[in-house]
């Protein structure tokens, strides 16, 4: 059962595509991340041209984000004020990111840069999460009373535009979430990820947001950055494949719903540890590909 994708100009095996998006959707439902960091390399692996994979993946993440935010909003788990502060930066980051993406594509070095970004970001985030989950598990098994110090206040917190963020119970310069937003927006455009895997740890450890609010607020942000990235990519590079996007969205939405039910079976730090392992595996595989001598030194590219 093959289906021809008109923009990607390749024919793909439909059941496999649904299985991949369903599987990644399952993970995103479990952990509250978009899953883009896993989906985009998988799409490239099954033969979708990288540029189309990144842009179409942004489209799918809009759906994931909306579905997630609606679910979290019911439980009041979204800090819209903070999210909006981040958004002001993300818009800038996304626009800049699409520009860089186009330049790299024309230079022919897009694949390399995207691979390097994935490797560095995924390995650092994966390691941090893994270490943190081990530490939490260690502490809880020792039954120690943990007096966590409130997040450290760096000079960044004292920058101008200081605002109160009542939902999260924080008081800091609005420029701080804005700068984080710039980074997230940039990554969305260049890597085809939602940015969640990076935002979530930053929000917890650096901003000090309560964990329950992080997933929903991050997804709120993801909706707008991915929507903007999708729009810019479609208009600038014409590389969003609407048929592929529809397939991924359907598979992902179904998978996510099952995933959010499965999460009840795991403890918090076990889930984070598992996610950390997945993230690190992807990072290692990509590093492996970059470092080991390739099967074929030559690669071919058709100039469009």
């Amino acid at each position: 059962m093959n289906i021809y994708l008109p923009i990607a100009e390749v024919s793909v095996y439909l059941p496999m595509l649904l299985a991949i998006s369903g599987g990644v959707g399952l993970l995103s439902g479990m952990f509250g991340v978009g899953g883009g960091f896993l989906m985009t390399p998988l799409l490239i692996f099954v033969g979708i041209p990288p540029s189309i994979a990144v842009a179409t993946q942004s489209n799918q993440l809009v759906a994931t984000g909306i579905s997630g935010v609606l679910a979290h909003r019911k439980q009041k788990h979204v800090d819209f004020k903070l999210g909006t502060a981040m958004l002001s930066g993300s818009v800038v980051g996304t626009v800049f990111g699409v520009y860089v993406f186009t330049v790299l594509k024309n230079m022919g070095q897009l694949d390399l840069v995207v691979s390097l970004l994935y490797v560095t970001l995924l390995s650092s985030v994966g390691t941090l999460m893994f270490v943190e989950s081990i530490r939490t598990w260690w502490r809880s098994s020792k039954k120690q009373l943990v007096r966590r110090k409130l997040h450290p206040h760096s000079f960044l917190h004292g920058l101008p535009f200081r605002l109160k963020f009542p939902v999260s119970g924080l008081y800091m310069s609005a420029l701080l979430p804005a700068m984080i937003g710039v980074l997230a927006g940039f990554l969305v455009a260049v890597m085809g990820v939602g940015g969640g895997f990076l935002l979530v740890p930053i929000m917890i450890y650096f901003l000090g947001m309560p964990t329950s609010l992080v997933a929903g607020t991050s997804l709120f942000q993801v909706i707008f950055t991915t929507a903007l990235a999708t729009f810019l990519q479609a208009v600038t590079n014409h590389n969003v494949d609407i048929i592929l996007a529809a397939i991924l969205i359907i598979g992902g939405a179904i998978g996510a719903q099952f995933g959010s039910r499965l999460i009840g079976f795991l403890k918090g730090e076990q889930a984070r540890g598992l996610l950390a392992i997945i993230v690190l595996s992807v990072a290692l595989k990509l590093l492996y590909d970059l470092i080991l001598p390739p099967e074929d030194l030559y690669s071919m590219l058709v100039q469009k």
Partner: protein
Amino acid sequence: MKLVLFILFLSIAPVRAGPLSVDLSSQLVSVTTDFKGDKIVLFGAKTGTGDIVVTIRGPEENIIVKRKVRTAGFWIDRETAIFPKMPSYYSMVTSASLKLPKSLRQKHHLGIDSLNPVMKDSLPMAEKYLFLKALIRHKQHQKLYRPKTKNISYLGNGLFKSMIKIPRNAPIGTYQIDVFLIQNAQVKDQKTLSLFVKKSGFNQKISDFARHYAALYAMLALMIAAFFGWAANALFANKH
């Protein structure tokens, strides 16, 4: 005026002047959503003796071949060779184990080793050859440069036919089919036909929409995403 009309008439009629006449069962291959490839029949007639050689060349494309070099621990694409106007698809059919002289093969591009690419760069010849070999290897792996076949049937009275298989991953565009009548290592006659591989109405409409109305296309893509995002939540949310 009459001359113009006459020439126009010649260009639309199936080619038939000279000892060789050829035609195709269909000039259009429509790439639909469930496209699995297609089969076109080339048929024709020859008067007198001679062997038939057919070459099928897909639309031209500019191909860039890169070579990785180990830089600072990573394997990075560093060296490039550009091959402009290469056929995106190539296959050849002959009626017998013809041994054709190299000059003839080179002149008419008979065979994958006679594609004669023009290379735009300053690499030495030996290097360029390595890049070309890599290009051919990749194309063969994608099944776009096919091995020679002997897929021609002679039906008597000079009639012949050959089945041309268009693969599933055939590039979109205009294919050039050259039919040669060869005798004594010389081309007695040659005819050229065009085959159009196009995206089906639906697929082509989507491509055009994406390219020419990009902003609207993007809005549509976003609305689809928004709808399914909302639907997934609405359908499943209460079942927790």
